């Protein structure tokens, strides 16, 4: 690891300048649970690590007018301990808390889980379903994009040189709304999703779905937003026919790989099954 420098700036502008001006490979570090492993196996050889955790606001959860602002370097453990966030967005917290072990939960962050850009990452489908916005700082100022606009391919993001995510914003939870996330793995802990599915729904007073967002993970090079699946839910209650349509719409968009965790056929089938289960939980949480 010779030729490597480490710095922990105390302001966003300082971090942006360090990232933008580094001639070699500069890597943003929050929890470091992916970065340090990739450095160890030699996949990444950064010349500069910019640790963002000393920047005020990068760690912590603030509730502002019903919206939640989550610092980009906030650990899964802190999210799981925040009663207000757990109550408002249980699916987002459950997804984040599925990442790794207790030890990893003490360090791993939402921004790292997203920007590592693994197709099987757990928190992104839940964040996408919840309508989360990523706030990005960079040399040209600040911009806000939906979470689904960050990952462009396995290991690649839409962030430019000098840019990094400073926080995530979850919208004010609507009345009669609920979110959920499930992943399928062949064991109960410490594994990578064969399929992940996040769904958020809002119902009307009669229990009919008026808004929905469905996202799938691990079935394509990036997380998918499944518009057809959301359309299958909107205007309906969760009948057998609606569940069948949701299942079919999710299966239709899958473009998974064959690997040791699952074949193409298996992943596609499981995507539909998981969507049915996740929708049931989300509807129940919304008061159906």
């Amino acid at each position, binding site marked *: *690891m010779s030729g490597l420098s*480490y710095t922990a700036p105390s302001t966003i502008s300082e971090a942006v300048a360090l990232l933008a001006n580094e001639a070699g490979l500069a890597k943003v570090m929050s929890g470091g*649970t992916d970065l*340090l492993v990739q450095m160890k196996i030699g996949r990444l050889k950064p010349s500069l690590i910019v640790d963002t*955790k000393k920047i005020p606001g990068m760690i912590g959860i603030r509730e502002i007018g019903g919206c939640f602002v989550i610092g980009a370097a906030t650990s899964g453990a802190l999210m799981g301990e925040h009663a207000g966030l757990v109550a408002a967005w249980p699916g987002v917290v459950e997804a984040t808390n599925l990442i*790794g072990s207790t*030890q990893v939960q003490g*360090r791993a962050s939402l921004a790292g889980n997203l920007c590592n850009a693994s197709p099987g990452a757990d928190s992104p489908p839940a964040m996408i379903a919840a309508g989360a916005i990523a706030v990005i700082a960079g040399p040209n100022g600040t911009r806000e994009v939906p979470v689904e606009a960050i990952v462009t391919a396995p290991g690649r993001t839409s962030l430019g040189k000098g840019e990094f995510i400073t926080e995530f914003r979850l919208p004010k939870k609507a009345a009669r709304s609920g979110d959920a996330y499930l992943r399928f793995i062949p064991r*109960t802990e410490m594994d990578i999703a064969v399929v992940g599915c996040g769904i958020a729904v809002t119902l009307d007073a009669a229990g009919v779905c008026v808004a929905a967002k469905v996202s799938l993970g691990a079935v394509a090079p990036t997380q998918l937003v499944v518009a057809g699946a959301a359309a299958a839910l909107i205007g309906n209650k969760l009948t057998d026919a609606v569940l069948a349509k949701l299942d079919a719409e999710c299966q239709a968009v899958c473009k998974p790989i064959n690997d040791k965790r699952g074949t193409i056929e298996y992943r596609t089938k499981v995507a539909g099954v998981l969507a049915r289960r996740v929708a049931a939980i989300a509807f129940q949480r919304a008061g159906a």
Partner: protein
Amino acid sequence: MSKTHVTTTINGEPAEFLAEAGLTLLDALRDEVGLTGTKEGCGSGDCGACSVIVDGRLVCSCLMLAVEAEGSTIETIEGVATGDTLHPLQRKFIEYAALQCGFCTPGFLVAAKSLLEKNNNPTETEVRFWLAGNLCRCTGYDKIVRAVMDAAAEMRGA
């Protein structure tokens, strides 16, 4: 590469060391501070043998840079016993034969201690999920889980 001077508190005592940017906290503890009770199993955060508590939070020391530890309070396996008096978890691990080769044991003890500080009456399921990031290839886990449950009961005065 220039080294950074890192000041920490380890097991209640001030501890200082020099660290290159890429040095992990695990390697600093073992090679710079001389606390070799913390083990390297996988080096990639999968096995938990390197578990330590940093500022009250259980972490894998192989997944943290030593320079990040500036100003931190660190607890390692060497701080679990009080002098010659073993921690209840350590006594119960011996009583239940919850170790064979012993390589994973420091990590299990530190992880279990952090669980009992957070939850003094965990269910077996909670113990198993909390310790899912600690791998043991000898015991089959059952004796470890029973030792942790019994230590918790003793510490509650049950």
